[in-house]
């Protein structure tokens, strides 16, 4: 597997500039001859499709929702980072770069991260020009808030709906291109396979979710922007429809899957309430600016609270353990996500957890309300407090919130080089579905940044460069969908569907997904160990056999069939989950979101093993149930020297 | 025509109609004064110079016609936009008046037709045409009286008695229909007067509340102003100067 990262020459500050200069360009008259497929309409997808369409390429964009505006980017609440230093608090591109590499626990590629920090400022300019209504100060200037893992205030936001506003901005631009006919949009189309001709990506196969029609689509380049795979845990902060299918199908066709075990468990989510639950809701991390995290010092007190004998507010100050402030004085409640999450788990495993399940900690606003007054807090977090009350039926102005970590973001993804191209020529991966910028842990407000950086600012250069250098104008757009490769891929898709429908067993896809989620959360979640992971692999295999032998699907393939859609995604999760465990098992170090119990300091902090693991694990598919083969891309740190990632 | 174009027409024609109705209501209240007041007033209107009367009538007619035609278009198009109806019915903040504009409108149309036959063309009681009376010169518009007496003729059409008789208990169904129509008008205006500002884009959060209140007040005043007359005639507070039979 060729893992040449194609990192440009020169000092990190000049790499992107050099790259942009060296990229080949497609002359304006020829652009319309080239066709590009973009799968996904999130920040990365909509951004890329709109930008490429605007440049004159022939773009086809696909999404599984009924409108591109509904991609899960819409759910992002907190904000987006940029090194504008509008607050004049000492921020800079270099500091954002530094924080992100450190935040990623020294497992990301310096060159990519620097580019991300570099374009971050252009992103804000771009979004404002689009009419994104960012929060402002009375002077009319943009407002900022601070976020986990940073000591500067560099996060731009639009109420609690930043992701929505950024996505709508991209959707506006996309809509414009659709109106102009530059982009053809295909809603309710699920991509089920990538088509390679002579090892080069030339198209995709989709299922029309309304009438079940299987279609072939050809293009000179295919860009996957299909988001993350947190739904492998079933319960997560992701949308019900989020899936690993697109990425996994590409992986099965030969694309390397990088660091699948790097998953982020977000510290501030609403705890699970019962079996019925279908999703976990995130409470924006910004709450940690004013909320104080604690659990009772004594197990007995915690027990009383769980059973309702005692109200949290009745616990005396000296009987409370503000564990984040205690353990990480300088960052306190704003300690990075992986660290905060693990601390919460520790407390609960220690029997001091709250919430009915015992898996919850308090996020307390009493002090903030005393200090700033209820109105200020309401002004800052009103919508989040309402959301909390609606779900938990508790008024957080009077009683502290209960929170618990939940699967949220996946740093792992398809391996890509500096040009965001996978190891398959012509197949690109952008946004959350690639592995590129966040190493082993992502800092808050940096995924929106990456999605838009990839879509608006990287895509136009790297796609143009690929087309200009690999596909002569004469051959542009001349791909025959009757090529055997298309027929073969279509058959694979149809066979899978028919097979699932023909089982006629007794287990619903949803119940299998729930089982899978339990296994993953329990054995490949916040803390992992060798024994557990080995068990997990066995259990996943059993579950997969159960799926293929006892699945029950209503209806047929040629109609709108929600269970068939679900089953297809679960099937891919069942294969992917195994790879995730292999990766977690193989990486017997702790870093960022990946915590191996075997590898921790005496204080129970994550312990990296840089000699052995200062690299990217890239997996090659060898067949379902076969042991995947690992390849490595080693990481060089010339600027940010790996150190113990201390937030004390 | 665009959906908003229709809204503008509804609003503008509605505005004129509201203006007329209120003015008309005030004029009609002269019924509570000495008969000369309304009679001179009516004479004045009938003898406006330069055919102004017909100008006004034409404007009114256009507004009513435009208002109705647009209303019909709106109703038909909106019906088409929701071919399948909901089984479970529920309403949130939309007022009763706002949902029933089309029905109140139709009743108003019937009223206006009847009303014009009643008092303008007077073909419901042709005898009305022969109601004449001598002015005594106690009305406001002295010049009317002076002019007439100068011409040595001070008898005018007795609108006072026409209305009084038209609304008398003897023809009870007329005043009853009027009163019902006035209730309907009241509802129509309750929504209409505020709604027209919304249609013209001259409303915001703050002013919506104010305008809704203003609309309510105006609608009620118009209602009271108009109904007071048939009520007064029915109850005999206002009595005709002469009976129908004695028309000479």
């Amino acid at each position: 597997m060729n893992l040449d990262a194609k990192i440009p020459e020169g000092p990190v500050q000049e790499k992107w500039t050099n790259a942009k200069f060296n990229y080949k360009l497609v002359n304006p008259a020829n652009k319309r001859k080239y066709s590009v497929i973009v799968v996904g309409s999130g920040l990365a997808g909509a951004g890329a499709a709109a930008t490429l369409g605007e440049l004159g390429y022939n773009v086809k964009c696909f999404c599984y929702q009924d409108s591109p505006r509904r991609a899960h980017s819409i759910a992002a609440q907190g904000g987006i980072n940029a090194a504008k230093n509008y607050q004049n608090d000492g921020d800079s591109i270099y500091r954002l770069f530094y924080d992100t590499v450190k935040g990623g626990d020294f497992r990301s590629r310096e060159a990519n991260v620097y580019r991300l920090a570099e374009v971050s400022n252009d992103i804000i300019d771009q979004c404002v020009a689009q009419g994104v209504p960012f929060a402002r100060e009375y002077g009319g200037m943009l407002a900022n808030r601070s976020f986990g893992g940073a000591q500067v205030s560099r996060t731009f936001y639009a109420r609690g709906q930043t992701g929505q506003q950024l996505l709508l901005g991209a959707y506006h631009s996309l809509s414009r291109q659709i109106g102009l006919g530059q982009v053809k949009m295909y809603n309710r189309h699920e991509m089920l396979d990538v088509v390679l001709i002579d090892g080069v990506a030339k198209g995709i196969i989709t299922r029309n979710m309304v009438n079940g029609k299987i279609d072939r689509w050809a293009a000179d380049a295919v860009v996957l922007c299909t988001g993350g795979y947190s739904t492998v845990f079933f319960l997560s902060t992701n949308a019900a429809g989020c899936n690993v299918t697109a990425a996994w199908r590409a992986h099965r066709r030969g694309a390397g899957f990088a660091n699948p075990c790097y998953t982020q468990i977000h510290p501030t989510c609403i705890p699970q309430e019962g079996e019925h639950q279908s999703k976990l809701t995130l409470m924006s991390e910004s709450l940690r600016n004013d909320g104080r995290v604690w659990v009772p010092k004594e197990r007995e007190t915690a027990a009383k609270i769980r059973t309702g004998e005692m109200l949290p507010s009745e616990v005396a100050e000296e009987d409370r353990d503000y564990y984040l402030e205690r353990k990480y004085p300088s960052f306190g409640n704003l300690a990075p996500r992986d660290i905060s999450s693990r601390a919460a788990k520790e407390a609960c495993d220690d029997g001091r957890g709250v919430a009915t399940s015992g898996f919850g900690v308090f996020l307390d606003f009493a002090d903030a309300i005393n200090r700033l007054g209820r109105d200020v807090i309401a002004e800052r977090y009103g919508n989040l407090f309402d959301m909390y009350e609606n779900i938990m039926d508790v008024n957080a102005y009077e009683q502290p919130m209960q929170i618990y970590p939940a699967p949220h973001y996946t740093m792992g993804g398809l391996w890509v080089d500096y040009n965001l191209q996978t190891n398959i020529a012509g197949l690109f991966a952008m946004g959350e579905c690639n592995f590129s910028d966040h190493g082993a842990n992502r800092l808050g407000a940096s995924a929106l940044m990456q999605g838009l950086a990839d879509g608006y600012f990287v895509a136009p250069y790297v796609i143009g460069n690929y087309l200009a250098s690999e596909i002569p104008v004469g051959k542009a757009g001349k791909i025959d969908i009757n090529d055997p490769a298309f027929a073969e891929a279509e058959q694979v898709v149809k066979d899978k569907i028919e097979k699932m429908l023909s089982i006629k067993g007794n287990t619903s896809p949803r119940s299998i997904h729930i089982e899978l989620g339990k296994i993953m959360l329990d054995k490949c979640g916040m803390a992992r160990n060798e024994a557990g992971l080995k068990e997990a692999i066995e259990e996943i295999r059993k579950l997969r056999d159960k799926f293929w032998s006892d699945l029950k699907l209503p209806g047929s393939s040629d109609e709108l069939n929600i269970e068939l859609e679900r089953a297809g995604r679960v099937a891919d999760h069942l294969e992917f989950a195994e790879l995730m465990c292999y990766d977690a098992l193989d990486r017997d170090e702790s870093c960022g979101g990946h915590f191996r119990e075997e590898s921790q300091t005496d204080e129970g902090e994550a312990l990296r093993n840089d000699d052995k693991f200062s690299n990217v694990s890239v997996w090659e598919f060898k067949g379902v149930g076969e042991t995947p083969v690992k390849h490595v891309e080693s990481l060089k740190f010339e600027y940010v020297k790996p150190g113990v990632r201390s937030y004390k | 025509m665009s959906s908003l174009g229709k809204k503008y027409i509804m609003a503008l024609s509605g505005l004129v109609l509201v203006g007329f109705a209120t003015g008309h209501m005030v004029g009609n209240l002269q019924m509570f004064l000495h008969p000369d007041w309304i009679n001179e007033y009516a004479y004045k209107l009938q003898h406006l110079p330069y055919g102004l009367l017909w100008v006004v009538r034409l404007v009114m007619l256009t507004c009513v016609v435009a208002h109705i035609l647009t209303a019909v278009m709106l109703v038909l198009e909106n019906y088409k936009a929701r071919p399948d109806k909901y089984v479970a019915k529920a309403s949130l903040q939309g007022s009763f008046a706002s949902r029933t504009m089309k029905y109140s409108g139709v009743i108003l149309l019937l009223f206006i037709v009847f009303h014009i036959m009643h008092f303008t063309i007077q073909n419901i009681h042709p005898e009305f045409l022969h109601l004449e009376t001598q002015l005594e010169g106690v009305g406001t518009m002295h010049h009317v009286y002076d002019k007439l007496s100068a011409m040595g003729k001070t008898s005018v059409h007795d609108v006072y008695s026409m209305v009084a008789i038209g609304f008398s208990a003897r023809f009870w169904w007329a005043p009853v229909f009027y009163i019902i129509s006035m209730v309907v008008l009241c509802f129509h205006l309750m929504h209409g007067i505020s709604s027209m500002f919304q249609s013209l884009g001259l409303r915001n959060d703050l002013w919506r509340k104010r305008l809704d209140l203003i609309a309510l007040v105006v609608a009620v005043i118009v209602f009271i102003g108009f109904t007071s007359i048939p009520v007064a005639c029915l109850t005999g507070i206002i009595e005709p100067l002469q009976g129908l039979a004695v028309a000479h």
Partner: protein
Amino acid sequence: MSEKNISVTIKVWRQKNSESAGAFETIKIESVSTASSFLEMLDLLNEQLIDADKDPIAFDHDCREGICGMCSLVINGIPHGKNNLQTTCQLHMRSFSDGDTITIEPYRSKPFPVVRDLIVDRTAMDAIMQAGGFVDQRIGAAQDANALPISKTIADKAMDAAACIGCGACVAVCPNASAMLFTSAKTSQLNMLPQGKPEKDRRALRMVRTMDAQGFGNCTNIGECEAACPMGVSLDFIAMMNRDYAIASVKECLGMVK
């Protein structure tokens, strides 16, 4: 947090596809936790149906946290159910009591044909956006964000409009099936901001005409939309669009807008 189990009767619209005729089906569902959301109740119901070899009820949903606008449903005659400022996915079963009968219908309006059961096709709203719901600006070529100060008042008001999640409840609830609240939220957001000013008139004209062309009804200022809107989008924006369109039309007659 005092949760209990209730049983309810669901009267739900079933329709195989846009061609076939639909009908109501009545199903009873036992022991639903009041802590579960309305959609989780439907998940449970679907599991039951699958067990009984019946087709599950098809409904739209994705984020399940009230922001993507994908969930729809008219519950007991009200889009997104009776609670204010909530989407269907945020509605919880504790809003119902034991023994209730709940009627669930799809959005009803000509531009939103039923695709299956409770799923409707809302692409008509995308079409309105494509006509002018954007700022005509070259991606990647923008001046510094702070070079263009915008008063907090305007920014906040624009955000109020921008909050629209494009769910279509305003259309579903409007007795005239009018899309005015949605369309006006979009025109107003962009027309208010300096970035959108240059295309103000053009935007108003094109978006309103596309809205009409899609077959939505005419607004008669009934105001149900505002009450049903999960994001509390205000009727002010309708007034604003009425104003913008009037001015634009006049300018158009005078040949001042292309």
